[in-house]
């Protein structure tokens, strides 16, 4: 078990190093010069050269990479070119907003997708049952940013019940010690604040969660269908268990593994989706920040953010692997 864990950690490190190299090289190959974004129109070539040297951009590409890598290993992600602040500091401020949004979307998607899959299995012999698959197929085809616009029209314009942008109403004058607004307000029993944070979260959460929910429904419903015809389900049915118990107690635990594995992969896409969805709702997370960073050619910030996205990917997949083992007794003693 420890050997497997060590192996996974090494693999994670290799993955992140790969991400670091690719991003670093790509950013320096594509057009766009951070210095050009910073200088004032009257700057002399000497000023530009001095600025270039100041940011270390005058050395060779491998030299720049190793300086950056060495600093990162010491916990220094550099200084943002556009915001003139420590990259790690800004990311630590913004990352919790994205984490709260992403995990809320995940929980929402798992609950909705799971419920629809179980319901679809329960009513699979109804004449109208194929309708569930048809509607789900429609949901499957609509990407997160289309949902975002549709939701803005629905709950922001026609039926203005939800706030359109931001993370919390600035008029509320709430003070937070941590950047985890939702968790903190819940933990300190400030329910008015928690409700406001949640209201701001609903639309981006729906936009990110609905596509994932339909994927979960699709995969889980198929696995449940396969599990329901197994001998052990038949035997349980003969004992007189209700159909709901057959699905939840007998089939679900055996059917959940493929869904878990797929949800892990899809969740990393969801985190990627925060970039555009946070932008649409002006939600102050790292996705939104990544767009600004790219527009400003803020190399240290883009690099830092990409590493964070990569690390999230690695962590999520590790959690998924652990969950798959936890739900399957045959793998537990391995």
């Amino acid at each position, binding site marked *: 078990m420890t050997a497997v864990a060590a192996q996974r950690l090494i693999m994670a490190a290799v993955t992140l190093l790969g991400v670091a190299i690719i991003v670093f090289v790509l950013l320096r190959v594509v057009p766009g010069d951070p210095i050009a974004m910073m200088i004032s129109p009257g700057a002399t070539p000497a000023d530009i050269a001095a600025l270039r040297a100041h940011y270390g951009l005058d050395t060779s590409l491998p030299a720049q990479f190793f300086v950056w890598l060495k600093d990162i290993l010491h916990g220094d992600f550099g200084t943002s070119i556009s915001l003139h602040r420590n990259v790690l500091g800004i990311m630590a401020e913004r990352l919790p907003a994205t984490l709260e949004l992403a995990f809320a979307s995940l929980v929402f998607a798992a609950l909705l997708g799971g419920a629809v899959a179980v319901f679809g299995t329960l009513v699979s012999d109804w004449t109208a049952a194929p309708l569930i698959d048809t509607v789900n197929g429609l949901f499957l085809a609509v990407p997160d940013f289309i949902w975002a616009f549709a939701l803005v029209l629905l709950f922001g314009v026609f039926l203005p019940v939800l706030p359109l942008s931001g993370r919390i109403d600035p008029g509320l004058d709430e003070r937070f010690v941590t950047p985890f607004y939702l968790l903190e307000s819940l933990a300190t029993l400030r329910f008015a604040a928690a409700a406001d944070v949640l209201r701001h979260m609903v639309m981006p959460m729906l936009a990110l969660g609905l596509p994932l929910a339909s994927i979960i429904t699709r995969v889980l419903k198929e696995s449940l269908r396969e599990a329901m015809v*197994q*001998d*052990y*389900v*038949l*035997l*349980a*049915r*003969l*004992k*007189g*268990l209700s159909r709901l118990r057959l699905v939840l*107690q*007998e089939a679900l*635990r*055996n059917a959940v593994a493929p869904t878990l594995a797929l949800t892990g992969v899809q969740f990393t896409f969801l985190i990627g989706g925060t970039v555009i969805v946070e932008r649409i709702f002006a939600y102050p997370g790292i996705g939104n920040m990544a767009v600004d960073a790219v527009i400003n050619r803020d190399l240290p910030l883009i690099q830092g953010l990409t590493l964070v996205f990569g690390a999230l990917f690695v962590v999520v997949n590790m959690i998924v692997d652990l969950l798959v083992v936890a*739900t*399957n*007794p*045959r793998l537990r003693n391995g």
Partner: protein
Amino acid sequence: MSPPVLALSNLSAISDRDRAPILRNVSLEVARGETCGLVGESGAGKSTIAKAILGILPRTIRVTGGEVKFEGADLLKIEIGPLRRLIGECIALIPQDPMTALNPARRIEAQLTDGPRLWRGLDATAARALALRLLDEVHIRDPDRVLRSFPHELSGGMRQRVLIAAAFALEPRLIVADEPTTALDVTVQKQILRLIRNMQSAHGTSVVFVTHDLGVVAQICDHVTLLFAGRVIEAGSASRLLDRPAHPYTRALLEACPRYDRPDAGLRPIPESVIADLYAELGQSGATP
């Protein structure tokens, strides 16, 4: 003589797809405490009968006539709710393949106590005590450990013992054993047969024993019904049918069995003329082809 526990009368069924007959006027009775063998080749209709008794006929099979009476009540006419309870409490199945009949994700204790907890309202302690007693009764050593185990931690023979214990958990009046030894080693087969026999006589349970193995019939059945193409060919007490078969097909089938007492005789395939006669007979009897 007490009324039979199970009585099928003139049960007929067809395939919904091509209207081909699956059962043709099948009648049979199982008395209290008796083991009735249901014997036939594949496709003879024995598992369709088992499914009809258990209320799990697939939608592709349609019953066109007849009754399946369990203790006087026609199982084909009872509402789904009461039927679930009746079968859950009074009729149990010993399945064919112990490797797939236990839920791989649940512990043996949970699977063994589902029925008693549901229908007898036993709490965890009482259900556990019952499970331990049942495992002891099917000669499982170390029942504590087995209760905590997952199915993959047990051998095939052990799993079949667990399934037999589960079948007897609610003291059912009728047990359907669907080729319960086919998937097992030959050495284990004998033990399992003896176990079913002992449990059956100790509990006074009636058993419908589905098999294609006449050797098994000789060991365990009091009564035999031989089926071919959905029709009862011959029925009677096991000893009579095996010693003095009346129908040519029964005779041919017995001849086709390998026997330890005449190892050099070889296997004799069933003569084609016998099969041809059977089909001719089916045609004459007016059954739809």
